[in-house]
């Protein structure tokens, strides 16, 4: 699948992180939206198209873990990057959820870029087959994706 720029939502309570990431990503051609907590981030999901979410863990109102749970209810396939500021305190993510990646703050920009690329290019379940009956055949979907 071609990696064409898309829509990215940035959720972090730290202004410096929001501006750094929007600066960097918009320069790379992404359409960037920002939110300062999980709750407002979730609300912005309805406002328009979002292809990827980059979220902090420790935030007021709704933290990163809760946001991931809510996002999964909307779309089990949406790529999410979780930024952790306390490295050894891993956030609990579903082990088999391949659309989630974690980076530790402070992150290296190259590392972040490659993570975004990896998530966007990963083999994913074809939306056409995303019915309950089709969920039992992920291999076919993977073959389609290749």
């Amino acid at each position, binding site marked *: 699948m071609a990696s064409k720029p898309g829509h990215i939502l940035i959720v972090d309570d*730290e202004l410096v992180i929001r501006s750094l990431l929007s*600066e*960097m990503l918009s320069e790379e051609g992404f359409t960037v939206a920002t939110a300062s907590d999980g709750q407002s981030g979730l609300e912005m999901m309805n406002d328009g198209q979002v292809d990827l979410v980059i979220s902090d863990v420790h935030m007021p109102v709704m933290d990163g873990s809760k946001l991931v749970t809510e996002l999964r209810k909307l779309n089990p396939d949406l790529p999410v990057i979780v930024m952790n500021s306390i490295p*050894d305190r891993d956030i609990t993510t579903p082990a088999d959820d391949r659309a989630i990646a974690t980076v*530790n703050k402070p992150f290296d920009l190259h590392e972040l870029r490659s993570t975004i690329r990896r998530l966007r290019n990963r083999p994913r379940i074809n939306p056409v087959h995303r019915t309950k009956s089709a969920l039992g055949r992920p291999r076919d979907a993977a073959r389609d994706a290749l």
Partner: protein
Amino acid sequence: MTMRIGLQKRAITGISLLLMALAVSLMWISLYQGSDQIRSQLLKRGRVAADNLAYNATYPTVIRDTASLGDFLDGIMAEKEVLYCGIFDDAGTSLAERLRPVFMLHELDVVESDVTEEGLHNMLRHTVADVIASDDHREYVEYEGMVYFQVPIHIDHGSSDELGSELGLYGLGGALDESATSEDNRDVIGAAVIGMTTHYIEETIADLRDNMIWITALAILIAMVIVSVVVRLSIRPINELVVATGRVAGGDYDCKVREGRNDEIGDLARSFNTMTGDLKKSRDALVEKELLEALVVELRETQEQLVQAGKLAALGQLAAGVAHEINNPLAGIMGYAQLLTEKLRRREVEGISAEEVPKITSYVENMEKQSQRCKQIVQNLLKFARASSKEEMVDVDINAVVRETLALVDHQLSQSNITLETRYADHLPPIRGQEGKLQQVITNIVINAMQAIEDRGTITVSSELDNDRVLVRVADTGVGIPGENLDKVFEPFFTTKDLGRGTGLGLSVTYGLVHDMGGEISIDSTVGVGTTFTLAFPVAGVEPQRAVPRNGTIERTSQPLDGP
């Protein structure tokens, strides 16, 4: 070996001997008195008989009525003890006499069987003749088992006229006034002689003696039985006490003795029981005290662990907070620095000449590097805080851990006049341990070393391989530890530092952590010169106790330690 004679035996023997002596002497006294009495009774009887005979024989003697005299004598002979009796005139001629036939005496065993009738009679007559002839006026004469009584027969001048008329009353009256009649008024006309054998009284005395011996023996026997019973009864509580004392000495404080008696032994038993009770109480108190002390120690250990756990928890919380607070701005700094570097590389920054680009790039890269360092410090802090038993024992490169740990204190050291020197041995084999714990151990020791250096000094941290063990030394040029404190520094709460500066927990926790990982810690210190702490950890895969190195698997290092 001397034989032990019990108190009981001694008491019984002593009292028995005393009783025996008493009984025997009593027996002898009574036997003596008894035989004396028997004898004197015999003598009295004989005397009375002789007196009566003499009195009664007065008139027949005067008229030479031998028939009457014979009758009197026969009467006397009725007494079996009398072997002979006779009446003599003043010339010493026998008027009448009676002799007991010798066969009767033989039968009665009064005389020896070889004594003949004639011999006996001759002997008697002969003796009597002697008695008569003698002027001896003793009451009796004893001779060869016989007692002879000789009483003169006499008539009173003043009353001679009454002789015929008042014959019946004569004897009585004569007997009555005899005491009043003086010897001078008397005319001796003959003598009455009675010979009595002492055989019978001797027999009686012998019987008496035999009986007495039997009775005494029996009495002694009974007395001994009573004595031994009484002694046993009175000594038994003492024996019980002796046994009980032994048991108490052996540690049985529940042992009680009967105290029923109302005497000295009862008192002793009572005081014994009181004493045992007191002993038990104090023993219990002692045991309680020991328990209490053990409890205090346990409590201290728990407290220590709690304090340590609390310290760690607080540190963990602090570290997490610090990480969160610092990592966000750090991410900003690093990110923007990186963006700037990229822009510089892409020549997107205007107003900077081409020559200046590398210089500015290096500035920004320096910013980035320093941020990287900050990131490392925060990570180490987190790691350190995480030090807990949750951690698994893993293969650890001790040099790496020491380096990381020293990085944490490096800043603090650079603010002081303390120089830090490090010498790490190359190619150290890994040890089994927990990184967090090792960091904590090294931090504690290095912090102590820093606090021991008053003004300026050096802390030297080195690692080396010693057979199967990896050694880490932390040497300082501080104040040193006095010998008397060397044992105490590992005790919880032992500190020489001011209140608030030291809790005295550092080394005790360190000691526990080192031992948890199978290691050992030792101190070498000279007051005024410095202190060296040496940690020794067994190489991974080697039993901690093994002193023999496994040549071949472990590379022995003889290279010089690398400098700082």
